[in-house]
């Protein structure tokens, strides 16, 4: 389905990443595969370094660290926040919402909306859409959108299918009204029939965690994982992205009347380098216009990867000028979403480490 928005803008971006770095070379001895094949996988997928939280660190810890940093530097005032959106698949608790926990820990005002959104890799685009809708209300001047996950805690260290690509991060985007009258177009699709492709089978009420669900098992592909762990059907996700994302973006651009060549950058969710290169090839977009270097430096941090891609590749352009970009997220749900938006004149665009 299609959406359009006017006079909304991203005014600042900060991403918090754990200082704790791990490397594929160190980890590959944990996998049940010949070293040469793991090295080949590293080369093709672009695996190398990634950031993982230390034991016990939760989404609210990363988010509070980032927001406190913005308060301390006068980049955001606590009382300005009229809505706090937290997009996560790894909340601190079932109840209460992680957004309420963050509100409480930072002593924010009561006169505000806290809202958790259960979305994964498409979560930055979904979160922006929700923020723009809230800004239609007179009482909402500023929305803080947080995309945060600590899914390394739900990945099996003996699963070569998922462990080497997962990274943890929390991105904070400040969303407010803007003067630019250009229409912001967005398109989104969902398909719950294919939800099995990305799933954490146990730990909810359908299959509560027990000693049995914590037991590692080999489902026939030499990877060991438990039902408490995140599972990904890699080839199903690959096909999903190749089949569904190009027509979504092409439809978005044609509706907006914007040629592919007029888009400065295609800022996609970062599953791995391989998938992004194949996506760019399929859409006949030069690789330089679709950054793919987030996984090799930080890992795939779900909804936070698009902000990371902007911060590490385009900081100067989006703080000193502006760019016409397509943002595209795709993953768990399944959900795929894209947005054509001008991003620029950001007050800040920084990476911050969580000690």
């Amino acid at each position, binding site marked *: 389905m299609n959406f359009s928005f006017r006079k909304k803008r991203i005014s600042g971006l900060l991403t918090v990443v754990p200082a704790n770095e791990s490397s594929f070379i160190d980890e590959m001895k944990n996998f049940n595969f010949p070293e040469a094949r793991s090295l080949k*996988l590293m080369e*093709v997928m672009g695996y190398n370094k990634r950031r993982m939280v230390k034991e016990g660190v939760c989404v609210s810890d990363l988010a509070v660290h980032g927001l406190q940093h913005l308060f301390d530097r006068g980049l955001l005032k606590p009382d300005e926040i009229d809505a706090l959106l937290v997009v996560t698949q790894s909340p601190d608790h079932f109840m209460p919402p992680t957004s309420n926990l963050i509100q409480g820990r930072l002593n924010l005002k009561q006169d505000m909306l806290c809202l958790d959104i259960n979305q994964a890799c498409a979560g930055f685009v979904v979160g922006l859409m929700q923020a723009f809708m809230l800004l239609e209300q007179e009482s909402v001047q500023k929305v803080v959108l947080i995309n945060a996950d600590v899914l390394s805690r739900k990945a099996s260290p003996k699963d070569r299918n998922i462990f080497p690509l997962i990274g943890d991060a929390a991105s904070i985007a400040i969303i407010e009204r803007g003067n630019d009258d250009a229409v912001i177009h967005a398109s989104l699709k969902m398909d719950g029939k294919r939800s099995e492709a990305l799933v954490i089978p146990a730990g909810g009420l359908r299959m509560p965690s027990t000693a049995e669900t914590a037991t590692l098992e080999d489902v026939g592909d030499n990877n060991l994982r438990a039902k408490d762990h995140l599972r990904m059907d890699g080839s199903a996700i690959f*096909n999903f992205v*190749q089949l569904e994302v190009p027509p979504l973006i092409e439809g978005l651009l044609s509706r907006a009347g914007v040629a592919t060549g007029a888009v400065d950058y295609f800022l996609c969710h970062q599953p791995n380098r391989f998938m992004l290169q194949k996506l760019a090839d399929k859409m006949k977009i030069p690789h330089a216009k679709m950054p793919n270097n987030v996984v090799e430096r930080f890992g795939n941090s779900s909804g936070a990867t698009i902000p990371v891609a902007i911060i590490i590749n385009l900081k100067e352009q989006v703080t000193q000028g502006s760019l016409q970009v397509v943002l595209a997220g795709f993953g768990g749900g399944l959900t795929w979403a894209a947005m054509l938006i001008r991003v620029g004149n950001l007050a800040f665009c920084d990476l911050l480490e969580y000690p």
Partner: protein
Amino acid sequence: MNEFLTKVAAILEVNEMKSSDELKAFPQWDSLAVLSVIAMLDANYGVNLRAADFDTTTTAEDLWNLVQSKKRV
């Protein structure tokens, strides 16, 4: 089919491949090889296979026949 065999051989990092060769007999045949073949078939033949499709595929020729049958659909 020769071009197809050459492409599969390149993915498995072997010099040549015969249509009767069994895919799973290659030590390099793992999830990365499967994904690389899926990507190659998508880019070159417009065919989208799933990893499960390889369960019923033994030789390179079986795979080629599967690709041909999907192309006609």
